[in-house]
Every structure is written in structure tokens, then in C-alpha cells.
């Protein structure tokens, strides 16, 4: 009785029927008219607001159950309510990327006949963190429960938390050393983990025995289940008030309205046409311990994106020309790519509340088979897929922003998100116990600049719209390191008329442990993985890691000598090297080394955002304020922005506006004097292209893109007037 779906059709048939109706009518579930909305718009809107309130309330309640600072402090959680077929009707704030990945999870269970086995019953709890079923990466663990009303399946409630420890080959959640699925950690593959509203004991035991820090995962499970039950009961109460027929119809109209609203918003805010952009990612692992020799250790990724906005308002994103999947943890599944699209759309176009899977249905992603966006091998690792996802969707934000500028909505233009290099750790805690954790202070990078103002400093990441670095004291409770510095990184925003938001850097003293493993991921140090816009420059590349082993910091402190709390502004010699004795280490790319111990020092820098507009138009007065407050250095103000600063009577920087005007006029002349016509540059560069006179990683990048993409091959060949295939593929220069 309890398995019985609402209609005579089984769930699987109903899902296929819904997809067929969408195909035939172009409208979600064949809803060509919003009849309930037309009958009583106020009731319609009120109901959606109620559903949204259920979600927001359930998430806030659940965060108080969690033990994880990632969920409690930084809000790494989202919840949503779905139709029986698994389409999102309403969602909370939080990591909205997962609203659609959960949708994929529910549909996967339906299409795989879970109605028959293991059956879908009232009180069941299903969990998943398999990205090929529907999530982004292994630490994103999702729970869903079916909602039954008088024996009829009427929807689903779902919740996701990003776990701080996933039990992989390296500690933490973003398992940077995973090169195949089998080293990513504990997988839960669309599994029934509970019945009668209770999580199974054997599932909890599996978690406890396979994770370094099970308290985070297990209490997050309880938090998620509590939020799902809370939403379920609210929906059941609502159905008892409005009736089952009304619920079944209105819940689908909400989605169709969301689809139409997305199309209308695109027509309102953008300009139709074709937009193009690209970014890159440098994966540098040569010589690092632990990486198996399964592929080339260093790899340059190109991520070209072509976005088309049709006059119907549909947005299509095409990733053709990008790189193949590889034996590393940065691959992504279509679910993750969907998630990236969803979280970007919700932030940039759907900021008025009625957001659901309808918005996703008004878009299309073209993900070439065999690339990192759509691997043709389900054994690949995806544990750090954000490494490529974030730069990719940063491009999407810049493409959308170009359309906002063209349409005149300059206040919405935004140079985009940046990567969030992340620290994972494990070993022996300050309490002498085993531990593992991802440090989530990375949830507060600098944002790209806006078209009318500077970017946000230390306050934005694309993947968590409630960006927050968390309190130092909370992080210190959870790891055997204490902060000796957390400060703004000068010049970390890309230069421009409006500079990108600045990032911050933390410096820690390793404390009360003899074995602390520190690893980092999503760290593109060799190339820019972000960009500027309309003349703005990219933000700097990821900064190298700086550490001091066997430091003399305790002796220095005992003597009252000055310490170093940040690396300083000399790129060649850091303040650590100047002020602290010990074995100094500088590491490029992901940090994979021998364990640290008490007395060592470690620093980690986050990323700033790209700049907007010509640097020579930047406000001199604002720049003086930036220099005074540590967001820019005097060197940058002078040589990058052409701003002449003087000191006032108290030694604070003040802009000399007249001198700045003269200096900028001279810089503009210098600019013209050293620039050459693009046609001349192409003619000169063509010889280099013909000889493939590039670094091996650059040649490999072209060869891989050419192998996978006829369009990339043609575009490359047409641009340089060469035969790209003969230059870069078999038989050509190695």
C-alpha cells in the first residue's frame, strides 16, 4: 500500500511520461498553461513562499545538530523539496549547487527500479555521494526521504552537507591525491541507509570504521535526516490544508513558472548572440610524493566556452575544445556541471525567490563525451572537481556579465568567481586522537570586480553564496594549529579601473602534535585560472606555499623578538625567511609532503578576483585609501595604475592628482609606442605556431584538444592559416 504512487502509473513510467511531455510541448510536464496561477495568483505565490520557508527553517534547525564547523560556521548545506519524479520545487539558501544534483540522484533511483528493490516506503532514508549518480564530489553527501500522503508518494525532501572528511587516500574531503575512484574515500551509492525515520546502525558502523573523523559525517547525517523529516511533515500538513489534487498540480506549475521566469529574465537582462571566453588551469605534480605515474605529471588545461543566447531566452553553454579526463581528482560529471550551472544562475539571474529546477530546464549544457566535463569512464576520480568547475563557471559569469553590460544593467556585471585552493589535513589532533578535516576558511575569497565598483574583499566564493571564512577560534578547536596571522594579501585583486576583491592569507603554528598531514588542492600556480574583463587584468595566480620546518619561533617568542605573520610583499624573499629560523620550504601547486610537527609553520593564501576596465582610469583617491589599508602596495599604485602618491603630515598616502594625470598621459604614450598592430603580431607568431615552438605541456594541450574536437581544430587552423592536426598530432614534433 505504501509503495503506491499518486497516479496509476509507476514512478518510472511517470518520470518517462513527464520527460516525453516536456519533449513534445516544450513545457515542463506538458503544462502549457499556468491555470492555478491564473485562477488565484496570491494563493499561488503564498504557497511557494511557504515551501521556501519550510526549506530555510529546516536548514537552520539542522545546522544546530551538526558538529561540523563547515556546516555550522560556513553553512555548507542546502535542502530542497521535490516532485515525485525528482524535480526541485523549492529550496533553501546555502550550497545551491546541489539542488539539481539531488534531482539527478532521485531520478537515478527511479530509473533503476528502486520501487521494486530496495522499495520506496514511508520512513525510508536514501543517501548518495557518487558523482556519476548525482553529486559533485565524494564529500558532498546527500540524503533524501520520500513524502507520502495517505499512502501516496507525493514528493521528496532532500538535504546535502559537504563533509569535512571522506576517508580517502589523503585526509579531508577534497581528496587531492585520488587518481581513480578507488582512492576517493567512502562511497554511498544511492543506498537505503535507514527505515522508519531511523538511520541503520550498520550504516553508522561503516561510517565510523571508514572515516578519520566520523563525528562530522554521522552527525551531519542526523542533521540532514532531521531537516528532511521537518520538511516532509510541513508538506504533509500543507497537503491536508490544500488537498492532494491541488498539491500535485501546483507543485508542477511552480516548476513550469520557474522555467518561464528564467527565459523571461534572460530576455530582460541580456542581449541575444554568441559569447566566447576561455580560462586555463595548471596541474603541477612532477616530483610530488604519492602520485602514481598513470599519466603526465604536469598538465595544462584549456577551458573554452561558447555561450549562445537565443531570442527565445534559452542559454546554451558549449565546452567543446576542452581537455580529456585524466588520472587525477579534478574530473567532473554531468551532475557536477549541472550543479555549477544551477548555482551560477541562482546567484546571477534568479535573485527574486522563485527559483527551482525550472531555471535549469531553460538552459542547455553541451558537454563533449570523453572530456573532463563528461568522462567516458566511470572509474575516474572527481574529488576535487571544483578545481576546473570554478574557473569554468567564472568564464560563464564573465560571459553573462558582457550581456548585462550590453543591455545596460551595469550593476549586475561581475568579473566572476575564482578558484578556492583548499587545505585538507589529518593525523594526530591536539588532543592526541586521530582526526581529519577540510579547512573551510576558503569560503571567503575575493570576488571579481563589478562594472561599477571594486570586487568584494575576502567575502565571496561562487560555490557558497553565503560566503564566510569562519571564526579563528572555532577552527582552532578543530585542528592542531594556532593562527599567528590572518591578513589581506596586497594586490591580490586583478588590476583595473575597478580592482578585483582581495584575498587573505593565513599563517599557522603547528601545535601539540607530532604528526600533522597537510595537503592542498584546487591550486593553479603556473597559469591564471581567472580573468579580467573590459581591460581589467586577471588576479594573480595561486601563490606558492611557504612553510618553515623546525622553526625557532618559540625561542623568538621567549626573547620577545619580532615574528612574521604573513609572507610580506617581496616575491623573492618572504618575511618568514627574514624573521624566522628553520628549514624554509616553498612549494608550487598542490602541497603534498611529509607530515609536519609541533613548531613548524605553514601558510596558505587564497585567491582574489579579476579586475574590470582600464587601470589608467582608477580613482587615485580610492587608491590612496587602498594603499593605506593594505589592499594595494605603493609599487602597484605607481607602476600598474600610474598613480602618484605623496605622504601627508602623519605619513599616510595621499594622491597627487595633477602629477597622476601627467604620469598617466606618459604611460598611455608608452603603451602605444610599444604596441604593434595585431596583424603584425599574428604574422610574426605564425612561424612559432608552425614549428609548435611551445613548452611540452602546451603542445600536449593542443594535441589533446585537436584529438577530441573538430571545431577546435578548424578554429585553430583557420586563425593561424595552418593545418593544426599535422602540427600537433602523430608524426609531428614530439
Amino acid at each position, binding site marked *: 500500500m505504501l509503495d503506491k504512487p499518486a497516479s496509476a502509473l509507476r514512478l518510472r513510467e511517470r518520470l518517462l511520461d513527464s520527460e516525453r511531455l516536456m519533449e513534445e510541448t516544450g513545457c515542463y510536464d506538458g503544462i502549457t498553461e499556468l491555470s492555478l496561477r491564473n485562477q488565484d495568483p496570491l494563493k499561488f505565490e503564498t504557497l511557494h513562499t511557504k515551501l521556501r520557508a519550510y526549506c530555510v527553517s529546516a536548514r537552520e534547525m539542522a545546522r544546530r545538530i551538526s558538529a561540523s564547523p563547515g556546516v555550522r560556521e560556513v553553512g555548507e548545506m542546502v535542502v530542497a523539496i521535490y516532485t515525485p519524479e525528482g524535480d526541485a520545487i523549492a529550496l533553501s539558501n546555502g550550497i545551491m549547487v546541489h539542488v539539481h544534483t539531488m534531482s539527478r540522484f532521485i531520478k537515478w533511483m527511479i530509473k533503476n527500479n528502486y520501487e521494486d528493490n530496495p522499495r520506496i516506503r514511508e520512513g525510508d532514508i536514501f543517501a548518495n555521494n557518487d558523482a556519476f549518480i548525482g553529486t559533485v564530489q565524494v564529500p558532498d553527501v546527500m540524503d533524501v526521504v520520500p513524502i507520502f500522503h495517505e499512502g501516496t508518494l507525493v514528493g521528496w525532501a532532500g538535504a546535502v552537507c559537504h563533509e569535512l572528511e571522506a576517508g580517502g587516500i589523503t585526509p579531508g574531503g577534497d581528496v587531492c591525491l585520488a587518481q581513480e575512484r578507488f582512492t576517493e574515500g567512502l562511497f554511498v551509492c544511492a543506498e537505503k541507509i535507514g527505515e522508519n525515520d531511523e538511520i541503520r546502525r550498520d550504516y553508522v558502523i561503516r561510517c565510523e570504521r571508514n572515516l578519520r573523523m566520523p563525528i562530522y559525517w554521522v552527525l551531519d547525517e542526523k542533521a540532514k535526516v532531521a531537516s528532511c523529516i521537518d520538511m516532509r511533515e510541513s508538506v504533509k500538513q500543507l497537503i491536508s490544508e490544500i488537498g492532494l489534487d491541488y498539491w500535485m498540480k501546483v507543485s508542477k506549475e511552480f516548476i513550469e513558472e520557474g522555467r518561464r521566469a528564467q527565459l523571461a529574465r534572460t530576455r530582460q537582462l541580456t542581449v541575444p548572440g554568441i559569447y*566566447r571566453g576561455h580560462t586555463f588551469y595548471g596541474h603541477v605534480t612532477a616530483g610530488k610524493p604519492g602520485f602514481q605515474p598513470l599519466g603526465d605529471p604536469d598538465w595544462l588545461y584549456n577551458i573554452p566556452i561558447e555561450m549562445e543566447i537565443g531570442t527565445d531566452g534559452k542559454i546554451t553553454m558549449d565546452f567543446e575544445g576542452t581537455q580529456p579526463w585524466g588520472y587525477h581528482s579534478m574530473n567532473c560529471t554531468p551532475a557536477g556541471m549541472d550543479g555549477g550551472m544551477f548555482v551560477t544562475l541562482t546567484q546571477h539571474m534568479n535573485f527574486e525567490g522563485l527559483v527551482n529546477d525550472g531555471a535549469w530546464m531553460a538552459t542547455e549544457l553541451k558537454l563533449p563525451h570523453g572530456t573532463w566535463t563528461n568522462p567516458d569512464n566511470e572509474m575516474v576520480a572527481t574529488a576535487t572537481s571544483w578545481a576546473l568547475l570554478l574557473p569554468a563557471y567564472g568564464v560563464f559569469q564573465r560571459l553573462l556579465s558582457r550581456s548585462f553590460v550590453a543591455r*545596460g544593467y551595469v550593476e549586475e556585471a561581475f568579473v566572476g568567481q575564482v578558484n578556492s585552493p583548499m587545505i585538507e589535513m589529518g593525523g594526530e589532533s591536539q588532543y592526541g586522537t586521530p582526526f581529519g578535516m577540510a579547512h573551510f576558511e576558503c569560503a571567503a575569497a575575493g570576488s571579481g570586480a563589478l562594472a561599477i565598483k571594486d570586487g568584494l574583499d575576502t567575502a565571496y566564493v561562487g560555490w557558497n553564496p553565503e560566503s564566510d571564512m569562519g571564526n579563528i577560534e572555532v577552527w582552532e578547536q578543530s585542528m592542531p594549529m594556532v593562527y599567528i596571522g590572518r591578513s589581506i594579501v596586497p*594586490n591580490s585583486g586583478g588590476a583595473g579601473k575597478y580592482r578585483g576583491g582581495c584575498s587573505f592569507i593565513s599563517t599557522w603554528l603547528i601545535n601539540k602534535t607530532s604528526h600533522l598531514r597537510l595537503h592542498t588542492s584546487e591550486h593553479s600556480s*603556473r597559469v591564471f585560472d581567472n580573468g579580467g574583463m573590459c581591460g581589467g*587584468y586577471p588576479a*594573480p595566480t595561486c601563490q606558492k606555499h611557504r612553510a618553515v620546518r623546525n622553526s625557532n619561533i618559540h625561542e623568538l617568542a621567549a626573547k620577545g623578538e619580532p615574528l612574521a605573520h604573513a609572507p610580506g610583499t617581496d616575491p623573492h624573499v618572504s618575511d618568514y625567511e627574514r624573521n624566522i629560523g628553520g628549514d624554509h620550504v616553498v612549494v608550487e601547486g598542490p602541497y603534498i609532503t611529509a607530515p609536519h610537527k609541533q613548531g613548524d609553520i605553514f601558510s596558505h593564501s587564497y585567491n582574489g578576483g579579476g579586475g574590470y576596465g582600464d587601470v589608467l582610469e582608477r580613482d587615485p583617491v580610492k587608491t590612496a585609501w587602498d594603499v593605506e589599508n593594505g589592499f594595494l602596495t605603493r609599487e602597484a599604485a605607481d607602476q600598474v595604475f600610474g598613480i602618484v602618491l605623496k605622504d601627508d603630515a602623519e605619513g599616510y598616502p595621499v594622491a597627487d592628482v595633477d602629477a597622476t594625470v601627467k604620469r598617466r598621459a606618459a604611460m598611455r604614450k608608452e603603451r602605444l609606442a610599444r604596441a604593434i598592430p595585431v596583424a603584425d603580431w599574428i604574422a610574426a607568431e605564425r612561424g612559432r605556431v608552425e614549428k609548435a615552438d611551445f613548452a611540452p605541456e602546451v603542445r600536449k594541450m593542443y594535441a589533446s584538444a585537436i584529438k577530441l574536437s573538430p571545431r577546435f581544430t578548424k578554429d585553430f587552423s583557420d586563425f593561424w592559416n595552418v593545418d593544426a592536426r599535422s602540427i600537433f598530432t602523430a608524426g609531428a614534433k614530439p
Partner: protein
Amino acid sequence: MTSYSKEIIRDLASGQLPWPQTRRIMSAYKDDDRFFKMVAVHQDRVAWKDPILLPVSDHLFICQSGDERVTRCECGHSFGDYRKNWKLKAAIHVRNTEETLREIYPNSDLPDPAWMEIREFICPECGTLHEVEAAAPGYPIVHDFEPDLEGFYRDWLGKPLQP
């Protein structure tokens, strides 16, 4: 319907509007008459008379120039037919050495010039830096934007362009 004066739109575009007012505009329902007001603001700013049809960057506009539609810099320099990539008619400065990259990133770690270069696309007349590409050596120059100008005016603005 939300609507703002041309003066407010002008100040918004130039970054001069006080933040609390800007914030309210960001939070409010969008003003559907924005496009033509913004075009009028741009038109006031430029010294030339060709009607602006579409802004495409901070200082680049597609405009009607006699029988042609061209991409034009705010200074008046024409980059030719708007359907062609304006960058191909620009001046370029490429930063592909540590020394030239260091000029823009004086206090930071640098990318490897063997893997990545910065290309600055400059107006050959006034020296405005219109666009910056960060790309691997050998990567084709990107054609950033090919607007569907006719479709935009006809289907979205309801004011078809004269052929």
C-alpha cells in the same frame, strides 16, 4: 513599473551613484526602459554623432555609421564591421616574460611565461586598454561577442533596425 532618470543611470554607469542608492537599484525590480536610457547616456559621453546601437565593452560601441554598422572606440576610432572581431584591428602588447609580467604583478608569484601570456588589446588611436586575454602561447585570439543585433531589436526591443 520601475524607472530611473537619465541622470541616475549616468551616475550609476560612471560609478558615481552613492552606494546605498546603487544597492537599492540592485535589489529592486529591474527598470525595463534601461537600455535606451543607457544608450542615451553613452551617446552624450562620446564626441561623435553616429547613433550607438549597442555597447559591447566599457569604451566600445557598435554604432550606425552611414550604411555600415561598425565597432567604434569612445575616442571615435573605428575597428570596422561589427560582425568581425575588433581585436584583429587593434594594437597589441604581449607580456610573455617574467620582466613584463612583473610590471603588472610587482609583489606576487608569477605564472610561467612558457605556459601563459597576457595579451593587451589597445585602441591604436587613444591608447585605451579595451581587453586583456590571459592565454597559452599560440592560443587563437578570442572573438568575445557576436550579438544578434537584428534579433535583439526586432524580437526583444520591438524596434526593428532599418536594413
